[in-house]
């Protein structure tokens, strides 16, 4: 963490274990869920998902077919 001064300043004022418990792990779990949703609606190659999400993908500038 100390190799990137400034990036985690707010986090660094708390003891390490509570930073993991209160910030990093909940944020990682939420971010991971977000990536799964983005993959399914923006990238998954299933024809069904593609056709349903077609217009959304085109306008969000995801590479689409």
């Amino acid at each position: 963490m100390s190799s990137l001064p400034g990036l985690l300043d707010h986090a660094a004022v708390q003891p390490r274990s509570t930073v993991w418990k209160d910030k990093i792990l909940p944020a990682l779990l939420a971010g991971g869920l977000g990536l799964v949703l983005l993959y399914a609606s923006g990238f998954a190659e299933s024809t069904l998902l593609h056709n349903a999400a077609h217009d959304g993908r085109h306008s969000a500038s995801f590479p689409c077919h």
Partner: protein
Amino acid sequence: MAGVFNLAAFKRIAAAALLAGGLAGLLLTAVQRIQVIPILLQAEVYEDAASAHAHAAMEDAHHHDADAWKPENGWERTFYTAVANVSLAIGFALLLSAAMAVRGGTNGWRSGLLWGLAGYTVFFIAPALGLPPQVPGAEAAPLADRQLWWLMAVLGASAGLALLVFARSGMVKILGAALLVAPHLIGAPQPPLHTSAAPVELAHAFIYASAIANAAFWLALGSFTGFFYQKMA
């Protein structure tokens, strides 16, 4: 579980993302319906005409399985687009609120607006500079190559922007700037020949319409996420 993981902190992130993503996704659907979808439907007329010609000569290389299910034009299509937009929006909102949680110290919709601007830069402007939004029926490089470059542009822009904004040391900021531009120096994969079934004016109108719709979407998503994240405290 409670000993190693703060469930309340996760619930706060998730609840803010659900509310903000739901609202912003519906807003995006409305804006798209007005100025993006009409262009897309027009382009599809050209695409269908072109593929009807080409079909006799070669197999449909376009992954548009003619027999596969797709929503009927009209309400059904709008409904599925709304579902897709809302799930995209909740996905993006989860990333935003997770970032807000890690950074701490958000002051509601105002700082949310800045996070939204960052999201627009990272997830729309950066990839669209190399791979602009395309109307259906336009020629493009292979899908896998474009997806890989898209990912590179997004990762470079997010890491680069974070270092530029949050890092203290000048050297690290320079590294951030380098990460930001590197994917564009490498260059996005392009087709051997830029051709499109639709006229070029339509393709350009689509780029502008998408850029505006996404700007409105990201600013709304960021400020809603900031607002709800603060409310849930």
